[in-house]
């Protein structure tokens, strides 16, 4: 509903209708202004390039990683380490990644001056904000590869993958080839929605682009965000047109992906039917899995660098380690940061809790009436994740302004809630439905009324998934940039909005403080969500 209202609110000004600032007639002026903007075609091309490349690469790397390792016990343990990466907001990962790869970043420092001979940061080297958007693609991979890998592992539980592995091996197939030919096609339908979410996000993200993408011309979504924030109100019209165009691009890409799927399926069938037992494919898969490991390593390095910068007293180029460590940055930033952390945490806590309660209510009523939601309902739940934020947030803001609630804490919380709810619901739905129905039924047979069955049987048994769903919701709220900016009307600062603002060139030590906190906050909640049920049930082996 908020999405639909927001879309209408964006679509009207795109065609010249916004009575509040004088637009009263339908016209195409906004579109003309958009396409007269120098470099707008470059912006569109950049968005497409980054989005498609990031999606295809992250899927390929995630698949290669799972193909090689899905059947090994080591990966099961590793996946516990992947999950925290998901809790880390995009902005923190992007900033940390910039610390890593910038011309004055840690990788160059590591090689300087011994290997490169550089005594000062190389001026001609462009590793960030490059015109092709490669830095942004790489930065997106850090988050999306673990996400898709984890989704693949989760989907594996629903296919007889062990038996399939034995069957294919008995037919003479090597592990990775067998996995791609026999297991992946069964898993893929469950990956489609997550892939779409990755595609939609990569094409239309503003916050990651502000940190890693070129600024002039920027990707289309950044252009729209810039115009929306312009003092010249007439800029609203082309901004709305750009936002609407962003939506059309995402819809077109999702359609193209579905067509591409058909082509790949056809080629894949022919590949399966040739009967190859695995030669070149094994090598390619190993390269891909190597890239997967590299992205995890880069992700961890990014987090460590944030922490290091936040404690650096001075850290001159080309030293690979800070000259001196101190807590000064934290002491100086402390008072200001405390308020920002309070904003961030209160928003995240309340929206995640509300989303959790609503999700439990929905799932409970679903299990009481014993009918699973339709496919269409599932797509509706995913809508806020697929529609580009820039495309409806402006319209959403117009509604908030008319209700005179913009810039209030409640307005920001409501805008976060729109994005938190689908993630919480989707994360809780599978374990909820997987719970053996005979448990609640035997509770009922023992005379427990429905609410007692819920509180005393279902919820304790699902303590861990409930905790994880809350942690995911918390992390999603912490990571929100555009909703905070639009609904908060710039008056409510969170760690994310501060980090994005500071990334435009402020002191890395201060930036380190903000981004590290931004990463640490969701991680702490995630940790608590896993540890608390484990502690509570430490004498119950059946709950492991």
């Amino acid at each position, binding site marked *: 509903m908020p999405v639909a209202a927001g879309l209408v609110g964006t679509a009207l000004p795109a065609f010249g209708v916004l009575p509040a600032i004088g637009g009263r007639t339908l016209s195409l002026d906004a579109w003309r202004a958009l396409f007269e903007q120098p470099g707008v075609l470059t912006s569109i091309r950049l968005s497409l390039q980054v989005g498609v490349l990031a999606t295809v690469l992250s899927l390929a790397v995630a698949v290669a990683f799972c193909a090689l390792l899905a059947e090994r016990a080591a990966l099961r343990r590793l996946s516990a380490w992947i999950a925290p990466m998901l809790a880390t907001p995009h902005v923190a990962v992007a900033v940390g990644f910039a610390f890593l790869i910038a011309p004055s970043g840690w990788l160059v420092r590591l090689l300087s001056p011994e290997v490169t001979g550089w005594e000062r940061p190389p001026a001609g080297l462009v590793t960030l904000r490059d015109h092709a958007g490669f830095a942004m693609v790489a930065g997106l991979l850090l988050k999306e590869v673990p996400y898709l890998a984890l989704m693949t592992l989760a989907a594996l539980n629903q296919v007889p993958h062990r038996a399939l592995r*034995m069957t294919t091996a008995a037919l003479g197939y090597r592990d990775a080839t067998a996995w791609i030919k026999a297991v992946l096609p069964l898993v893929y339908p469950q990956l489609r929605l997550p892939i779409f979410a990755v595609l939609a996000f990569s094409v239309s993200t503003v916050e990651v682009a502000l940190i890693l993408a070129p600024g002039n011309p920027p990707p289309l979504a950044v252009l729209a965000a810039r115009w929306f924030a312009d003092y010249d109100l007439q800029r609203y019209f082309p901004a709305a047109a750009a936002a609407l165009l962003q939506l059309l691009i995402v819809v077109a890409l999702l359609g193209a992906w579905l067509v591409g799927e058909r082509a790949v399926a056809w080629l894949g*069938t022919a590949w399966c*039917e040739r009967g190859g037992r695995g030669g070149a494919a094994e090598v390619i898969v190993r390269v891909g899995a190597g890239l997967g490991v590299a992205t995890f390593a880069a992700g961890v390095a990014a987090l460590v660098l944030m922490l290091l910068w936040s404690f650096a007293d001075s850290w001159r180029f080309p030293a690979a380690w800070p000259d001196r460590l101190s807590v000064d940055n934290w002491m100086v930033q402390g008072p200001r940061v405390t308020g920002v952390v309070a904003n961030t945490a209160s928003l995240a806590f309340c929206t995640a809790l509300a989303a959790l309660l609503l999700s439990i209510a929905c799932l409970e009523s679903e299990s009481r009436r014993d009918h699973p939601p339709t496919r269409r309902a599932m797509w509706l739940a995913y809508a806020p994740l697929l529609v580009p934020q820039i495309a409806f947030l402006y319209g959403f803001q117009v509604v908030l302004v008319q209700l005179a609630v913009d810039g209030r804490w409640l307005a920001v919380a409501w805008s976060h809630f729109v994005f938190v709810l689908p993630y919480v619901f989707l994360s809780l739905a599978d374990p909820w439905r997987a719970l053996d129905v005979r448990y609640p039924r035997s509770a009922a047979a023992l005379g427990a009324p429905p609410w007692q069955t819920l509180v005393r049987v279902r919820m304790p048994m699902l303590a861990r998934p409930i905790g994880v769903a809350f942690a995911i919701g918390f992390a999603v709220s912490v990571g929100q940039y555009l909703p905070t900016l639009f609904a908060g009307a710039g008056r409510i600062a969170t760690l994310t909005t501060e980090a994005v603002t500071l990334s435009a060139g402020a002191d890395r030590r201060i930036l380190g403080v903000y981004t590290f906190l931004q990463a640490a906050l969701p991680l702490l909640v995630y940790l608590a969500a896993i540890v608390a049920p484990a502690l509570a049930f430490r004498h119950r082996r059946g709950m492991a």
Partner: protein
Amino acid sequence: MTVASGAQPLRLADVRIALPGRVLIDGLSFTVEAGRIVTVMGPSGSGKSALLSWIGGFLGPPFAVHGDVFLGTRSLNGAAPHARRVGILFQDDLLFPHLSVAGNLLFGLPPAIGGRRERLEAVGRALDEAGLAGFGARDPATLSGGQRARVALLRTLLAQPQALLLDEPFGKLDAALRADFRRFVFDFAQRACLPTVLVTHDAADAEATGGPVIELG
């Protein structure tokens, strides 16, 4: 169906399979001649399925295994499962739902065999012999249980294994189909001259093989 076969015996020597604190099988040795079927029987938990998994190369922790397994003179100890050339048939047919019947069989056929047309012909001949002529384009999900079981056997044999392991493959079929499919499997295994190990808990299966029976547990 043409199945290349080295016609070699499968030999197990002094096999011991144990779980922590419990020995399942100890000092087990036997030889299966090419074209013969040896039946392994025993209650569940006696280690009969673990034995098959071990021959196929799939048994890992917590099982601890000592002993040797040979195909002819070739030792299978420590070989990767895909390199053993040992076919397995399970209780579930495990046909790939994303491929057609012919696609499943082509998946089994080694890549060394011919171009697309020759491969399709080889698959067509196999379907003919199994009484499934014209089923190639069908979706496996539209086949009956007995038909699916036969396709699964064809897929295993088209991969040209040198030995065949049957892990209760008749368990899910009803009585009438069971005898029928059993005859079918034994015929094909014998014609292909494969040493075959059958694991079952049904005495009628063992009787039908006409071969030796090893009791576990």
